[in-house]
């Protein structure tokens, strides 16, 4: 009888291997399918619906299956580093610079650069209408506003809360930059003390989800203007601070060196900077929200 059990185990092993091979072969029938370009994008570009808008146009123009996966900038660059995506569209200058310095980016043909800006907007600080920390309408710089939120939040965490993306996204990077510019040690002063005091909340979710959370908790948060406009109808949050050089938010595209399709990735770069597409980007959302969610690339502003 013992021999039979061994035979069965062998049969099972063979079935398992055949099954796995079948699954992988069937899942990869690449010959009859169109070419694929994979792009990892920051969530704020996805949540606004811009990618949905541009996807069909790109696919038709270049006869390719454009596959967009939305992750935080940190994860998007990780995927780019491993070559699991062919290009990334992100908005964190510090992380982008590291990515390129480590050699994971490829210069785009005709642009003489690896990080190609293609649109920009601004970050804004939003919060509850009654503004318990009193940061709105007083011409505060973003740094001063952050200081007030920390000071009042420390005293009255029940009334004043700040929701951080907490996920190494471009927005999170900007938030950290503002805290640094305002003179704080982010790790100990803000995350450490802030969480302990109860006013600093790390969400760990995408921009849309973070806005929803801030709305529910009647808290402050930093958001890019595009996503905020797209969600404004459903939220009670209002913009409170929207001026300051530090709030500039530039979206850039980087071709990934380890990616599988550098040629099509180059096409994507050309596409995003093409005059007709730039016009579409500039007009995106205007009929629905009354103002543009994104602005065209401008060399003086975007660099």
């Amino acid at each position, binding site marked *: 009888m013992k021999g039979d059990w061994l035979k069965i185990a062998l049969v099972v092993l063979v079935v398992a291997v055949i099954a796995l091979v079948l699954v992988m072969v069937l899942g990869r029938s690449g010959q009859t399918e169109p070419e694929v370009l994979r792009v990892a994008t920051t969530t704020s570009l996805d949540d606004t619906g811009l990618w949905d808008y541009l996807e069909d146009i790109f696919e038709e123009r270049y006869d390719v299956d454009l596959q967009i996966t939305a992750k935080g900038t940190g994860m998007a660059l990780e995927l780019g580093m491993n070559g699991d995506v062919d290009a990334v569209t992100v908005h964190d200058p510090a992380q982008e610079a590291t990515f390129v310095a480590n050699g994971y980016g490829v210069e785009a043909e005709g642009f003489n650069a690896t990080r190609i800006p293609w649109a920009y907007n601004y970050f804004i600080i939003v919060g509850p209408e009654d503004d318990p920390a009193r940061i709105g309408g007083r011409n505060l710089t973003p740094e001063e506003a952050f200081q007030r939120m920390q000071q009042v939040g420390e005293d009255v965490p029940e009334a004043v809360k700040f929701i951080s993306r907490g996920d190494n996204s471009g927005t999170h990077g900007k938030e950290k930059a503002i805290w640094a510019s305002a003179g704080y040690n982010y790790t100990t002063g803000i995350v450490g003390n802030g969480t302990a005091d109860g006013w600093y909340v790390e969400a760990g979710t995408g921009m*849309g*989800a973070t806005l929803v959370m801030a709305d529910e908790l009647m808290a402050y948060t930093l958001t890019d203007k595009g996503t905020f406009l797209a969600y404004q109808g459903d939220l009670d949050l209002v913009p409170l601070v929207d001026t300051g050089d530090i709030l500039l938010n530039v979206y850039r595209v980087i071709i990934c060196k*380890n990616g599988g399709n550098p040629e099509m990735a180059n096409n994507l770069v050309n596409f995003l900077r093409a005059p007709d597409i730039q016009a579409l980007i500039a007009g995106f959302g205007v009929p629905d929200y009354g103002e543009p969610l994104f602005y065209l690339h401008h060399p003086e502003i975007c660099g």
Partner: protein
Amino acid sequence: MTEIWEGLTRAVGLLISFDPEVLEIAGRSLRISGTACLLASLICLPLGSSIHFHHFRGKRVLINIIQTLFSVPTVVIGLFLLVLFSRAGPLGELGILFTPAAMVIGQMILITPLLLGLTISALSGVSKETVDTATSLGASGFQTIWLVLREARYAVLAAVIMGFGRAISEVGCALMVGGNIKGATRIITTAISLEAGKGELELAIALGIILLFLALVINIVLNRLQQR
């Protein structure tokens, strides 16, 4: 609270109108989980029987490990496969990251402990006399296994149904290893996660109701089989 009622009406609306995007993700959910369940069953039913009948040292320990693995978080399986199938990883050449194939493999890994453990339980319910009688009448190993599986078919099918349920309801693995790509790897559960994250609670609830409805239909079909 109105979201739940509105979700229900939205679900009915989406189903009746055969909304193309919903049909697409529903079809994909069924295909992926169905395939994973079928393949895992083909492996686990014989293997589970084999473990049940064979007495070997460490059998108790093995069963303990199998039952412990019931609790593996789906996202952990997803992370493991992400690293494994990444182009920078050992199996990167296969190029199946961000494809349904990887999601099928993930769900197979997820439900294998469940199917193994429940098959072993199901077979334990068959009386020893049946096995002894079969052996004494000259049944080979294969024939005995087949006989006992048939005796326990009700419980075994319940195990398969549970495996399917676990597969079609999971989010973490599909999200990690599939990437929730519209038109390629988006399934009902990852879509629910996305829509809920965007604050579209009504749509998220509607999708959840549709998933349950699909599970109900499948269960009715499988129950018919169970009774034959």
